[in-house]
């Protein structure tokens, strides 16, 4: 497996390609949003609209041999790590060709073959998993690292303490990526925390950086810097990405707890609009955007059509597949 070193990747992956990835995630989620409204998506749907720059910026410095774990709001994390779009859609629609054969859904999208260790329905639970993954990677000694995405609300769970302690103590290469969107479901996180990530990181002597999580280049730069250090000399890092949850906690959330002002400022903070302005300033034409959008939309159409044509999964393999089949073992 090839180890992709962050800096190299940032250079080769121009803002154009980062933009494209963010756009793909956005459009994919917008389609899901619509499908959900039409009653075609079962279960809970937590969209990451507004937070795409985090996933794209982080993944731009990771290779396939690096691992990521994610949380309930994990669509962007999965797609940015390289989960195939049609398997992704099929999963969320609950179809047989879903990456998890329709058994996991939105909160459990995973593809272990590319180091995507799964979204997770349990707040905070990705952190210990990532700690273990990082230990394994360190034991293997190939310079790979493990990243974990979590929200600001997850800072309240005790497990973060155990993970900060262990990764610092054993110098494990975990990149802790906090998506700080200010919300824990329907409550402002400031009413849930008497600390913050900077202070917590400091108390475990873990290098910390806070970035504008809606600026994809800022995320990629800082992540690249951290990951390069980590590859040379394993140890944890914390990157806090200030970002914006543009939609509700989940689809169907009326959001009556959010005030007008916050809602109105959102478009300004939109990471995709920002990247677009930058690219326009760099001289890209409207036509370029139009073409790109068309391209992305058609990519999504193809994948989604594939997903929609996928059959409903059948129950028969469910029980047989709980444990690993073993040749010669009855």
């Amino acid at each position: 497996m090839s180890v992709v070193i962050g800096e190299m990747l940032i250079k080769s992956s121009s803002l154009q390609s980062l933009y494209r990835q963010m756009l793909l995630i956005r459009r994919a989620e917008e389609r899901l949003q619509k499908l959900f409204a039409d009653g075609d998506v079962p279960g809970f749907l937590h969209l990451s609209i507004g937070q795409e720059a985090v996933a794209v910026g982080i993944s731009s410095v990771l290779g396939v041999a690096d691992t990521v774990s994610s949380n309930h709001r994990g669509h962007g994390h999965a797609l940015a790590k390289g989960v195939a779009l049609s398997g992704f859609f099929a999963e969320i629609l609950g179809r047989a060709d879903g990456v998890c054969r329709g058994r996991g859904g939105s909160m459990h999208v995973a593809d272990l073959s590319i180091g995507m260790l799964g979204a997770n329905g349990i707040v905070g639970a990705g952190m210990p998993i990532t700690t273990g993954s990082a230990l394994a990677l360190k034991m293997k000694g190939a310079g790979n690292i493990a990243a974990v995405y979590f929200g600001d609300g997850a800072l309240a769970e005790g497990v973060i303490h155990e993970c900060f302690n262990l990764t610092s103590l054993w110098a494990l290469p975990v990149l802790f990526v906090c998506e700080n969107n200010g919300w824990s479901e329907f409550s402002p996180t400031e009413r849930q925390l008497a600390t913050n990530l900077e202070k917590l990181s400091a108390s475990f002597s873990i290098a910390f950086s806070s970035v504008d999580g809606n600026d994809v280049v800022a995320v990629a730069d800082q992540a690249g810097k951290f990951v390069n250090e980590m590859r040379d000399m394993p140890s944890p890092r914390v990157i806090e990405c200030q970002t914006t949850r543009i939609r509700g906690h989940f689809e169907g959330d009326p959001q009556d707890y959010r005030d007008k002002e916050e809602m109105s400022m959102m478009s300004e903070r939109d990471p995709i609009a920002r990247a677009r302005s930058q690219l326009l300033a760099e001289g890209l034409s409207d036509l370029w955007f139009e073409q790109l959008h068309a391209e992305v939309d058609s990519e999504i159409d193809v994948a989604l059509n594939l997903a929609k044509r996928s059959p409903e999964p059948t129950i028969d393999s469910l029980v047989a597949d709980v444990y690993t089949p073993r040749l010669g073992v009855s």
Partner: protein
Amino acid sequence: MSEVRYLKAVNQALYDAMEADDTVFVIGEDVGAAGGPFKATRGLLERFGPGRVYDAPIAEAVIAGVAVGAAMTGMRPVAEIMFMDFITLAMDQIVNQAAKARSMFGGQASLPLVIRAPHGGGLSAGPQHSQCLEAWFAHVPGLKVVCPANAADAYGLIRSAIDDPDPVIVVENKTLYAAKSELPDDPQAVPIGKATISRPGRDVTVVTYGAMVREALTAADQLTIEGVEIEVLDLRSIQPWDEAMVVSSLARTHRLVVAHEAVEAFGVGAEVVARMADIGFDELDAPIIRVGAPFAPSPFAKALEAAYRPDASDIVRAVRRTLA
């Protein structure tokens, strides 16, 4: 008497208990301003204020711990664990602390605390948001476990749980929240440990609880057509459970089916069967059949989940088997 949603009965029970006793308080994630993720605590903050309704951070272990310590210090806490699956993060406080305090302190202490935990599938919420883990708690001496199947029992068992001097786990089925059933205008407490006959019958006893009561009643309707009258017994309490009522029904029907939504293997049903295979053995004319979820995590996809969850047709099949 009026038809109300199960959820409304839960809410009213909390409200009335808080009115009745100012040592009662609620704590949980988003239970305050948001009125609870399922709206079970709606209006409580407005009525009782932030000194009685605590919006907690996402930290299940300390939420349960607060219940334990507050109960030791004279209060009657009611903690909400948003989905029963998250109770995995609070097991030490519930199992090693709450359940054992009275016994291991030689009977000095009573810990009047309640943990409310919604269980069950049906929402395509997937493997980590659909589990029915009540069998775990029923296995722990010191805990009581109830699981109401309708509005009146939801009201009555929650009132009893809050009033109870010992720790009670109240398991609420998520698919029932929206279901309507009758609630008396002056609803009463329902004693913990007493089952009820939801439908009398003479041929086969079907013991069940929670959302499966509804399925059993549907099965009863179907079976009537075949000339089979099942007696549907709603346990309501799982720990302690009403062994006497099950035996006495069995003494009439001589055939037994036990059904629940939880995974069949090592579930609550196993205990009911095991007791009847001992004290009820002489009454038995046929194998005892259990109905429960297959041995797999609860799947996400609608079709899968529907096939996975036990329902009326499974009960019908089981009943037929006991009559074969």
